[in-house]
């Protein structure tokens, strides 16, 4: 049904059946991460770039052995970067690591307490990375002007927060997300803030093109079941948005006809 009425998500020329992107952080182990990934139906998964531990046991598998770039679109992100320069270096390392892979998630944070995005550093990093040939999916605040500017700089997707990273507070300001959507010509993906399934559904009902989450799945009591819930939540919100909701009424409207009552 929705095959007919919906177009799949397109990012940087790639087409994706799933509109859910998940992270690979905070899982008990690779095994749980992999099961959650499968349950979520996600085709894109974010990873972090970090130093190898010198002298670590090489027998233990690494993330990319368990979640292979062949099967999934690996989305290296710059989490942990607090300046444009750190973020740019991280993206270049990622590209080298993944044999020229151009798709990255740019995220430049302002401080370690709030993890709120630093929009000025993000803007300058985005400009550099686009010039340098990257396909940039950019994490930002819900400031509609900054979102538009990032699009104009050539980012392939703009990803405003619903609420601070790891807060689980949902979509704090749907009005701003709406403003962003009204002016956007690239995919708008809510990144950060989702805490439970209905948060993801609400994001999609606003008309977003996708949702990115990590903590909501990884820190759920049962991450794999929550991953399944999130798959359905995103599909459900998308279908509801395309179907078009009923109008709200302060007052009631009967579902059963009045005439024909026999008393």
């Amino acid at each position, binding site marked *: 049904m929705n095959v007919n009425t919906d177009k799949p998500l397109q990012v940087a020329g790639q087409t994706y059946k799933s509109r859910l992107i998940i992270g690979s952080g905070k899982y008990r182990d690779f095994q749980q991460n992999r099961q959650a990934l499968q349950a979520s139906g996600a085709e894109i998964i974010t990873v972090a770039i970090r130093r190898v531990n010198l002298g670590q046991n090489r027998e233990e598998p690494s993330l990319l052995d368990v979640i292979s770039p062949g099967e999934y679109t690996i989305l290296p992100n710059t989490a942990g970067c607090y300046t444009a320069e750190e973020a740019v*270096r991280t993206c270049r390392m*990622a590209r080298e690591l993944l044999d020229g892979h151009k798709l990255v998630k740019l995220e430049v944070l302002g401080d370690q307490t709030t993890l709120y995005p630093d929009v000025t550093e993000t803007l300058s990093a985005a400009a550099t990375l686009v010039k340098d040939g990257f396909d940039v999916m950019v994490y930002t605040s819900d400031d509609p002007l900054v979102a538009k500017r990032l699009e104009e700089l050539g980012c392939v997707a703009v990803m405003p927060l619903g609420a601070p990273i790891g807060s689980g507070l949902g979509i704090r300001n749907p009005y701003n997300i709406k403003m962003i959507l009204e002016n956007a010509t690239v995919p708008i993906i809510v990144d950060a803030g989702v805490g439970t399934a209905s948060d993801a559904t609400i994001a999609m009902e606003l008309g977003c093109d996708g949702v990115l989450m990590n903590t909501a799945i990884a820190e759920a009591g049962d991450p794999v079941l929550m991953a399944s819930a999130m798959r359905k939540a995103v599909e459900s919100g998308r279908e509801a948005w395309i179907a078009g909701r009923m109008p709200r009424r302060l007052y009631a409207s009967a579902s059963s006809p009045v005439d024909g009552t026999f008393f």
Partner: protein
Amino acid sequence: MQIKVNGKNLEVAEHVTVQGLIQFLDLGNGRVAVELNREILPRSEHDTQVLRQNDIVEIVQAIGGG
């Protein structure tokens, strides 16, 4: 000869290459990327690039992250 790898000082022989360093660190079979003195060092140059005194090397991998 002294170099710095991932922030730690390391004593290595003269003329050792980056590839040699990676073997030495037993990272051979892993998927890693290398920065030499803050510039990316393409994988293709790992076995030709010889390390020098005070070189700063960063070797990274992909790990779980949001």
